[in-house]
């Protein structure tokens, strides 16, 4: 048994090309993710909104709006609005170019108070729509303030001064509290899924364990079958050394992601490492199981494993970040049994939640799935006489 493992390690180590890619591919993707997401979480998503203000009408009202526009802060003294004062014609052309997101009109024809109206273009762009929405809210608030002043002047003229004073005050009502213990940002979930994918890709090595041990699939398999060593013994030894080897490789990539890319995956570090290990176990046994099924060619089995792993990772959010919750709402059972979802979820619970019950639930499920894969694979490879070779 030890001898088989020793040689199997040697075989794995000598396969330089394979090892290179096992190590490199999570690292490369990790770097790309890091680069791609480096700016997203810095909360500077909302950029100042450009508007055109038509200055044909009333200069008094304009002055009023000017101060109002300047007072509205995006944050830390940066104004939310970048106004351009121009003619209506110019404003429309700016809107058409999408240089500005909306046009403000002052309007005092309706009554003696100045109200604002807004023109925007129809657009499907999320950013443009958001800016338009902010503009609309601004207009509403302005008009509401105007009506408040009018109302007060009519009903409680004695309070007008207090009201105007209150109007000039900037008050914040909300304070942000983080629900997350560690304030982990959402984009780490892509890294959770990246590790999940690296784990599932170990299935390719598991595939070869089954191919190399089946007499009808390879010459070496035939030779092993005629040897007096119990087949299960060889398989277990090889699976085990595969899991350890892959675990070490993935641990290197994990270390790279944590240490070099500085992605915070280290809460409950021993448990995080355990997750990587269990992930490799599940991946390898999955490959072993698929390799044991039926008479598909090696290429087809690989295709199934690779695209299947990617599908599982897609469903747990590797490509579209909120996939997990969509699945949770439409077909939660997938999240309970998909290895990719379980691995990334395990990391998530470590990073976010104080309560580790869900973590252990994930890990136990993964171990259970591995056991099932193993058992299934054993049952399928157990048949030792083949109909044809």
């Amino acid at each position, binding site marked *: 048994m030890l*001898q*088989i493992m020793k*040689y199997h390690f*040697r*075989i*794995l180590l*000598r*396969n330089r090309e394979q090892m290179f890619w096992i190590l490199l591919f999570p690292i490369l993707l990790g770097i790309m993710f890091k680069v791609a997401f480096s700016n997203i979480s810095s909360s500077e998503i909302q950029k100042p909104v450009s508007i055109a203000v038509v200055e044909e009408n009333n200069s008094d009202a304009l002055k009023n709006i000017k101060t109002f526009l300047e007072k509205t802060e995006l944050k830390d003294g940066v104004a939310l609005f970048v106004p351009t004062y121009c003619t209506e014609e110019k404003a429309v052309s700016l809107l058409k170019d999408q240089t500005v997101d909306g046009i403000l009109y002052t309007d005092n024809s309706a009554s003696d108070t100045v109200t604002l109206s807004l023109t925007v273009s129809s657009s499907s762009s999320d950013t443009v729509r958001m800016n338009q929405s902010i503009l609309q809210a601004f207009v509403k608030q302005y008009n509401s303030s105007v009506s408040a002043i009018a109302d007060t002047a009519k009903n409680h003229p004695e309070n007008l001064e207090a009201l105007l004073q209150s109007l000039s005050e900037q008050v914040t009502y909300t304070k942000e509290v983080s629900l997350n213990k560690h304030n982990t940002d959402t984009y780490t979930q892509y890294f959770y899924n990246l590790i999940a994918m690296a784990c599932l890709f170990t299935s390719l090595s598991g595939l070869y364990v089954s191919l190399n041990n089946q*007499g009808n699939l*390879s*010459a*070496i398999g*035939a*030779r*092993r*079958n*005629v*040897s*007096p*060593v*119990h087949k299960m013994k*060889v398989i277990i030894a090889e699976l085990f050394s595969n899991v350890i080897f892959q675990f070490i490789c993935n641990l290197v990539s994990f270390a790279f992601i944590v240490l070099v890319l500085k992605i915070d995956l280290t809460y409950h570090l021993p448990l995080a490492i355990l997750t990587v290990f269990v992930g490799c176990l599940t991946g390898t046994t999955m490959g072993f199981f698929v390799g044991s099924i039926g008479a598909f060619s090696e290429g087809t089995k690989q295709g199934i494993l690779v695209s299947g792993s990617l599908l599982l990772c897609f469903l747990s959010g590797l490509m579209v970040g909120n996939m997990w919750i969509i699945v949770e709402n439409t077909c939660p059972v997938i999240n309970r049994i998909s290895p990719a979802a379980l691995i990334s979820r395990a990391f998530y619970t470590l990073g976010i939640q104080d309560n580790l019950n869900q973590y252990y639930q994930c890990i136990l499920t993964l171990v259970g799935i591995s056991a099932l894969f193993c058992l299934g694979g054993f049952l399928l490879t157990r048949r*030792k*006489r*083949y*109909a*044809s*070779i």
Partner: protein
Amino acid sequence: MSTPVVKIENLVKRYKELVALDHFNLEIEEGEIFGLLGPNGSGKTTTINCLLSLLSYDKGNIEVFGKKMNPDSYDLKRQIGVVMQNVAVVDELTVYENIDYFCGLYVKDKALRKQYVEEAIAFVGLDDFRKFFPKKLSGGLLRRLNIACGIAHKPKLIIMDEPTVAVDPQSRNKILEGIVELNRNGATIIYTSHYMEEVEQICSRIAIMDKGKNLAIGTKDELKQMIKKSESISIDILDLPDTAIDEIRALKHVYEVTYENHMLTVLCSGGSHNLIHVLDYLQQHEITFGKVYSELPTLNDVFLEITGKELRD
């Protein structure tokens, strides 16, 4: 009489429509080098694979060392060494490691295994190549490595499935000598091939099979007696009258006479002194002749006669 090493009774194996083995019978005694001859597709490898419990079969009984052979007959498998038709070695391991790896599946004891591996390396003459990876070996060396992997654990029964395919004469000789030596050291050997000379050279008993059936079995001489032809006489004659041809044909044991390009060929079946009879005749009729050749039948003749001459595959 001792129990046969291998006993195959009424073995039937079908691949869907195709009947690969059709009530095949075989017994191999201890100490034999047993040659299994047959054209491509005659069922040699299928027989071997059934014998090794790699293949399922539809009917029949297989015993090895007097015990029924099953996929989990580990104690039997331990005593068998197999050299597969296809080279089955691990690309990532060196020559030494490959032999050690496969030997390790049979022999637990480390020191003993080391000794065995060294012996196997010396046996196949791969001493200079022990650190080589299989990819760097030539075809003949690779075959030898393949053999070493199969026999390093000193099995009592060695099964070799066409071990000399695509091997140069030097390597082949080395391999054949080795087989004889293994046999001398006490191993029973089953050897499949379609190279007649090889089988003729080393095998003590031979079975000829075709279409899944055992057509003939026996020693070389026994097999040769089975066929009509026993001697072929060729004589250089400058000028032979047509009447002489007919008269020679009438001689005892002669069944075919041809005269082409000043060469008289006489085929005889059975009997002895055929050559003398022919030469006597020529002298009596004062026909001058030059070189005289006499050939005894080869296994090739036997094989072709039994299995027919049409091309296979």
